[in-house]
């Protein structure tokens, strides 16, 4: 488990390049810093300065090596590397509130931006005009879109929103691609069609994720629940009410296992059993430092009894690797069908890399199916 502290302020968002040697992150201000791996440390190689507001989302397309960023200044920029300089291209999103999240599609020919204007902007490059144009998905979204994830077929888009619902939309752009083949979420996919809408959980949907095959979608909600929906004639939704604080980000690491992290500052494993239709808590994925057990003097005991009405001494120190909420989780090695390493960044300004094999061997009852 490697942990690197970049700074003291929160890391708003991050994205990795294709070979994982560079990380682009926003240090809670208007810029994007790109760090290059140097030995065991990181050195800042570029600063992307164009936004007028906090950068809320970054995504790095692995094949075409383009970075898309979106911010609270209601803009998105597509950055291309020319020589050793990243050059921005403005994308007009036609939104009147802050942009919140952005994701390249799997084929990298379009990207989607979720915003506070209660709509999703799906942007693609128009060759004739040499310009990025966007189409809006408005209905039936009632509030801010907090998170997005694309289906492997490059057409379906899962969106988690503050109106307490996780929805799957079709973002089919007929100028760009052929009609998609039917999926488990439906076969007719005109642009903006709602293929699935969740029900049963209250609370803002902070994070959504499609599974590797695209047949399942998981979302983490602010009422401390995690839910998985399996596509089909009538989608089956399985929810788990957890005993922890709300989770902010979720990702599949195999077809049946999810890792989610949030305000409790440690990633947790959840296992989905399709046959039983059950989602269970798999374990806490943090290796805490062994705190030295000091014996308590009698004086301390009485002091505790007087002050806190209890004789135990609970140190007010977090034992997890991250010292503050984890806000984003990304797959480092492998993919959503079989992940071997994932990375988390959070409000403590640090980035932790977690190795699945090491975690499996460290925690005896952990089973990643």
């Amino acid at each position, binding site marked *: 488990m490697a942990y690197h502290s970049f700074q003291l302020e929160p890391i708003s968002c991050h994205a990795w390049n294709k070979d994982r040697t560079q990380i682009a992150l926003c240090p809670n201000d208007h810029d994007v810093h790109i760090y290059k791996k140097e030995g065991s440390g990181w050195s800042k190689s570029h600063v992307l300065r164009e936004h007028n507001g906090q950068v809320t989302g970054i995504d790095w397309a692995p094949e075409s090596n383009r970075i898309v960023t979106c911010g609270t200044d209601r803009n998105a920029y597509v950055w291309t590397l020319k020589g050793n300089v990243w050059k921005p291209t403005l994308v007009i999103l036609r939104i009147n509130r802050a942009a919140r999240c952005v994701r390249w599609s799997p084929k990298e020919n379009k990207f989607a931006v979720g915003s506070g204007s*209660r709509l999703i902007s799906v942007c693609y490059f128009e060759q004739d005009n040499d310009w990025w144009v966007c189409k809006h998905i408005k209905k039936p979204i*009632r*509030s801010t879109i907090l998170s997005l994830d694309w289906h492997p077929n490059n057409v379906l888009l899962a969106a988690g929103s503050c*109106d*307490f619902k996780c929805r799957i939309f079709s973002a089919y752009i007929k100028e760009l691609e052929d009609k998609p083949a039917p999926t488990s979420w439906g076969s007719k996919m005109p642009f903006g069609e709602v293929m699935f809408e969740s029900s049963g959980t*209250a*609370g803002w949907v902070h994070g959504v994720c499609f599974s590797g095959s695209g047949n399942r979608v998981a979302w983490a909600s*602010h*009422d*401390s*629940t995690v839910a998985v929906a399996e596509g089909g004639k009538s989608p089956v939704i399985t929810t788990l*009410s*957890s*005993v*922890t*604080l*709300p989770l902010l980000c979720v990702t599949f690491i195999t077809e049946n296992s999810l890792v989610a992290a949030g305000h409790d500052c440690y990633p947790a494993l959840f296992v989905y059993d399709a046959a039983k239709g059950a989602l269970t808590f798999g374990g806490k994925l943090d290796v805490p430092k062994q705190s030295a057990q000091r014996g308590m003097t009698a004086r301390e005991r009485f002091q505790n009894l007087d002050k806190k009405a209890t004789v135990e001494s609970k140190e007010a120190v977090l034992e997890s690797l991250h010292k503050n909420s984890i806000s984003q989780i990304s797959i480092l090695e492998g993919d959503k069908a079989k992940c071997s390493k994932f990375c988390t960044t959070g409000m403590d300004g640090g980035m932790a890399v977690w190795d699945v094999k090491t975690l499996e061997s460290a925690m005896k009852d952990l089973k990643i199916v």
Partner: protein
Amino acid sequence: MAKNTLSSRFRRVDIDEYDENKFVDDQDEAAEHLGPDSAEVDNLIRNGDMMTAFHIALRNPPINTKNPAVKERAQAIVLKVLTSFRAGDIEQAVRSLDRNGVDLLMKYIYRGFEKPSDNSSAILLQWHEKAFAVGGLGSIVRVLTSRKTV
């Protein structure tokens, strides 16, 4: 000018009704439960059968009604059951509930905190401690975020 400034009827127009972006809450059309049966619960308390009284009091929570009187009545019944419990039995009662039951119990406990009476706070805090041990922080978060209040 004097004529059209006399009438103030325009002030009665509810402009939010005409806003096309207005958020209309879709409430589920679930059945309106009317709260537990007070007579049954009283009987059970008199006979000393606390566990059954507890389970019956937690049945039919008035989640979907908009009528505050129904909610008040249900709250009063549950509070009566909770205060009649012996301290030692609380843990066992909480253990007998499933996940949803613990969440519901937490909702009633916090509702009870809202209007403290002479001896309700102490017993409610004991219930809270035991329910927290089972439900964790998640159950408290669900009390805060749930839009279907009890």
